């Protein structure tokens, strides 16, 4: 009888699978991604290496010495033990963080804009006591600009009524508001001494969300040539909620990571963060193979660092708020070993 190994499902549940079952899951995952995104599946050697990582009872897995990469964050602490600055120090001094990210718990540019002087002061104070680079992060979150939370008509209500033109016009107006807020926050953070700004979950509200981010990045780059700019995506595929929006002549709806990265670079970002969402009904092995297959095309053509999102529910890490070390470390190692990423 074939040995079985403890492994994780996409929701984090601990299950047991044999080597043959894990192999089958990996192959199914890469084929699913290849078919959907029309990209090559992982090679036999790559699947063999993934199988070695997954078919192991070890509690922890890691890259080889010398293969380490840079870590950036989407928030590093949220008054976990005291102030946010104390949290950043804990990340720097005790958790081996290569960089840290100051963030507000609301984590949306629109919300941050209303308390910007406080956030900027916190950035300035943090810079006095931290040696590692300090980014400021938030989400573009275009949906917050629609009624009842925001000023423009709600396109999610207009679309089911087939008011397509009105829904598109609402998104276009929301984009203008979002760009202004993102640029205002970036300007204030730069004035306060930030090393960079992180746009997290770009494209979460679809192509309008992504366009707003790209336009904001372009303006920020023009104003601050030395500012670090990271764009982390919300998912592997840009949803066409508007469906006619373009950036630099490229239609945004339907873009996969490689094409997303190219536009992010063109806009002026210094780091791109692809995201591939986890299917909680599939195994961890299936999900990591799918995620790596979708991001791999980026790595051959990247001109800026690629920091893949490998966190709760993305990048092959289970969808859970209490993540097990075995699952995170395997995903972390797999992403670096297979993709030769620049960071996570």
């Amino acid at each position: 009888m074939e040995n079985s190994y403890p492994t994780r499902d996409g929701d984090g549940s601990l299950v047991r699978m044999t080597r043959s079952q894990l192999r089958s899951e990996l192959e199914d995952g890469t084929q699913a991604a290849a078919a959907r995104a029309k990209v090559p599946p992982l090679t036999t050697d790559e699947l063999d290496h993934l199988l070695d990582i997954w078919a192991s009872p070890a509690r922890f897995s890691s890259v080889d010495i010398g293969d380490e990469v840079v870590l950036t964050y989407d928030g590093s602490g949220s008054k976990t033990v005291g102030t946010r600055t104390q949290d950043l120090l804990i990340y720097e001094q005790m958790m081996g963080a290569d960089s840290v990210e100051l963030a507000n718990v609301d984590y949306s540019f629109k919300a941050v804009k209303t308390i910007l002087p406080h956030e900027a002061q916190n950035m300035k104070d943090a810079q006095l006591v931290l040696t590692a680079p300090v980014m400021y992060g938030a989400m573009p979150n275009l949906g917050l600009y629609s009624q009842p939370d925001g000023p423009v008509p709600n396109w999610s209500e207009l679309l089911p009524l087939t008011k397509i033109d009105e829904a598109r016009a609402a998104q276009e107006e929301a984009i203008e508001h979002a760009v202004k807020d993102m640029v205002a926050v970036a300007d204030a953070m730069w004035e306060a001494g930030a090393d960079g700004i992180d746009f997290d979950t770009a494209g979460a509200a679809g192509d309008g969300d992504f366009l707003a981010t790209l336009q904001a990045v372009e303006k920020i780059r023009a104003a601050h040539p030395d500012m670090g700019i990271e764009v982390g995506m919300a998912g592997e595929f840009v949803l066409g909620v508007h469906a006619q929006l373009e950036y630099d002549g490229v239609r945004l709806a339907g873009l996969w990571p490689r094409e997303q990265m190219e536009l992010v670079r063109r806009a002026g970002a210094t780091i791109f963060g692809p995201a591939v969402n986890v299917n909680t009904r599939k195994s961890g092995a299936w999900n990591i193979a799918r995620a790596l297959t979708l991001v791999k095309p980026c790595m051959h053509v990247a001109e800026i660092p690629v920091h893949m999102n490998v966190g709760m529910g993305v990048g092959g890490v289970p969808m859970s708020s209490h993540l097990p070390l075995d699952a995170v470390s395997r995903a972390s190692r797999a992403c670096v070993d297979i993709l030769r990423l620049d960071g996570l």
Partner: protein
Amino acid sequence: MGMPVAHATASGMCGMRAAGDLVARMQITRGMRIREAKAYVAERLGVSPFDLSDPLAMEDVRRDHHLGRVTTFEMSYPSESSAMESKFRIADLLDLPINCVERFARHAGVARAATAADLRG
């Protein structure tokens, strides 16, 4: 904690325990990919890229170059560089503008070029 600790241990460069913060700066500010960023920092520090993730090797390098070190026990190296002072050194060593350093020098009325020269002396 499970996620950041797991990543830092499984694949991170250890931050200030080694030279992860320095390599991160080249990526964040200059958009360098990992191989290029490691090579650049290693050349500037006079070490090999392999050494950059080694806390023991980098402890001496960071101390010698006044680049800041993680505190141990209750000792905070009172006679050595503070965070901001270390960042002046890092900017100088990497030949990289660090935003808060430039602003600190401007607000303090210290010409940045003179500051760098003084530090080297």
